[in-house]
């Protein structure tokens, strides 16, 4: 079936070519990092995780969100999602691949990555994260591909695939829960030490992932022959709306606990985030941008009129996506380190090399997504 990705019009190949160039550029920067060490990034002794792990965290959410299509479609037989469930699954494949790439580029000794398998360590959350992420990648490739292949042959999907589909539902929840546990179990990092971390992660994931899917569906509707169906898009929009409300609510819960209890180790981080601490305001513009985008998103999405019109819906979804990208991809990880456990403040500024690698990995993800979508859409439009 993969050969279907080799046929396409000019703009398809221009897009693929563009992505390949970005991937190549990112790889070039990565070679630089391999040669010198992680010192080429803006990370430091105090802020020892940065953009890479931030992107990883955000993308785990995007990957997990496939469940928002799989669950209604397969568990509740919600036929409307029939056309786009595969898009969710393939989005998950691309997102998990990006996650794994971000982990690898973040390692100080990537040549030793296999030590995680050679010395399996069940008490480490990172070990479990590797297990669930790889499992999820496998499940989504396997399920998506098998179902699509059946569709290409115009036969119903084989029965034995069902257990894998059902397994993928709790598995999606597990990847984001385990990723939240990376943070939520660390003593002495007041910003992350919160039981609501996992629910908050899931809330934002189920908003950001489907928001991206809506944007993709709107794009495909406009520029290709593939139409996901307005009803499907509307259902997704409702999911995004509720998830976004929950996500904001969870953050407000966090703010209440922190500011009402007034425990300094917890409060300092939030102060740094929103108003700056001892004159350091590095994260402030980002956090306010995210807050304003979230407000716009809520206004646009809660109002049925604006939710129901493609133009404003696109604005709402873009606002959701970027608001949460800032929140999880940038501020969540970095603010955990500021102030440090010794209550010193070292700010973090990513370097050009680091940003280049980040762009490269994103391009790789878009490349995988474009190719898989090309295959899926060709099958869908041919069999329709």
């Amino acid at each position, binding site marked *: 079936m993969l050969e279907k990705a080799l046929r396409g019009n000019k703009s398809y190949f221009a897009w693929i070519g563009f992505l390949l160039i970005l991937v190549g550029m990112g790889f070039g920067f990565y070679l630089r990092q*391999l040669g*010198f*060490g*992680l*010192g080429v990034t803006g*990370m*430091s*002794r*105090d802020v*020892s*995780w940065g953009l890479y792990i931030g992107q990883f965290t955000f993308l785990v959410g995007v990957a997990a969100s496939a469940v928002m299509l799989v669950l209604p479609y397969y568990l509740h037989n919600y036929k409307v999602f029939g056309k786009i469930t595969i898009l969710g699954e393939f989005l998950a494949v691309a997102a998990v691949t990006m996650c794994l790439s971000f*982990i690898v580029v*973040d*390692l*100080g*000794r*990537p*040549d*030793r*990555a*296999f*030590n*995680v398998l*050679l*010395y399996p*360590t069940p*008490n*480490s*959350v*990172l*070990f479990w994260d*590797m297990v669930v992420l790889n499992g999820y990648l496998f499940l989504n490739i396997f399920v998506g591909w098998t179902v699509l292949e059946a569709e290409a042959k115009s036969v119903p999907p084989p029965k034995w695939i069902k257990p894998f589909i059902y397994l993928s539902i709790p598995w999606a929840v597990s990847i984001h829960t385990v990723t939240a546990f*990376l*943070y939520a*179990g*660390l*003593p*002495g*990092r007041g910003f992350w030490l919160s039981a609501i971390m996992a629910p908050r992660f899931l809330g934002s994931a189920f908003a950001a992932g489907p928001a991206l899917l809506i944007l993709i569906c709107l794009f495909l509707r406009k520029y290709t022959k593939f139409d996901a169906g307005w009803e499907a898009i509307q259902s997704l929009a409702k999911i995004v709306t509720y998830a976004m409300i929950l996500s904001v609510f969870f953050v407000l819960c966090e703010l209440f606990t922190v500011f009402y209890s007034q425990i*300094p*180790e917890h409060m300092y981080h939030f102060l740094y985030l929103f108003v700056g601490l001892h004159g350091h305001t590095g994260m402030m513009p980002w956090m306010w941008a995210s807050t304003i985008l979230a407000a716009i998103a809520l206004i646009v999405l809660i109002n049925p009129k604006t939710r129901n019109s493609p133009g404003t819906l696109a604005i709402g979804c873009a606002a959701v996506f970027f608001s949460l990208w800032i929140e999880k991809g940038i501020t969540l990880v970095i603010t*955990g*380190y500021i102030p*440090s*456990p*010794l*209550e*010193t403040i*070292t700010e973090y500024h990513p370097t050009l090399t680091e940003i280049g690698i980040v762009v490269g990995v994103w391009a790789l993800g878009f490349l995988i997504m474009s190719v898989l979508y090309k295959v899926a859409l060709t099958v869908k439009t041919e069999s329709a």
Partner: protein
Amino acid sequence: MDDTRRSFLKIAGLSMLGFGAKPVVDAVAGAGGPKFEKDPKAFNGKRWAMVVDQQKCLKAKDGCKDCVLACNSAHNIPSFNNPKDEIKWIWQTSFEHAFPGQENPYINDYIKTSLKGLPFLVLCNHCDNPPCVRVCPVQATFRRPDGIVAMDYHRCIGCRFCMAACPYGARNLNWSDPRPFIKKENPEYPTRTRGVVEKCNFCSELLAVGKLPACVEACKEKALVFGDLEDPNSEVRELLRTRPTIQRKPQLGTRPQIYYIL
């Protein structure tokens, strides 16, 4: 290319280690040996710990850093001279940074007047319940039976999960090759390579041959006292019995094993 081959060899080597090493040694072994043993001179503690006596430190010459310097040269610690890349096993910092959350205007006043603004020594606490060990995905950092939280630089993958987990900022990544930044190499001790995490090892290499940690040896005022907590007659136990001490962030349940006499 070199890197892939290297990692291939490493995997090959490791799998050999897992499945093949024992038979090989057995092959030379015959009846009599070979064997692995501890040095008979080694200090054998059950729970190593350290007491830092600020009152004694106060008697030293102004700006004394003998302990820090001794550690740096014993362990080939590079000096990058910038806080971003800096590597520190033991260092001096002010009370508010060493004990955040415990400061108040009056204790700050005490430190300023009675302790003459003396800085506090901070290092890895060799926690009894170490979060760094809990999170490491490859057991590159591990707790030895004698309580020392050790590092295996051969195994560390540089994920820095432990740096996020340590509540005392005791851990350092080698953001680049440290060798060019080592002032004078100590030929007895290895350096580290880029991409691995390092921290204080309580001088386990010295304890193994019956010597005290380098910082303890270096302090002329005997402000650093090292010993075995399980031995009721040890000097550390005597100090803990007779003097009130505090630990850094004991409320986190890490059970830190560096005790401070103010």
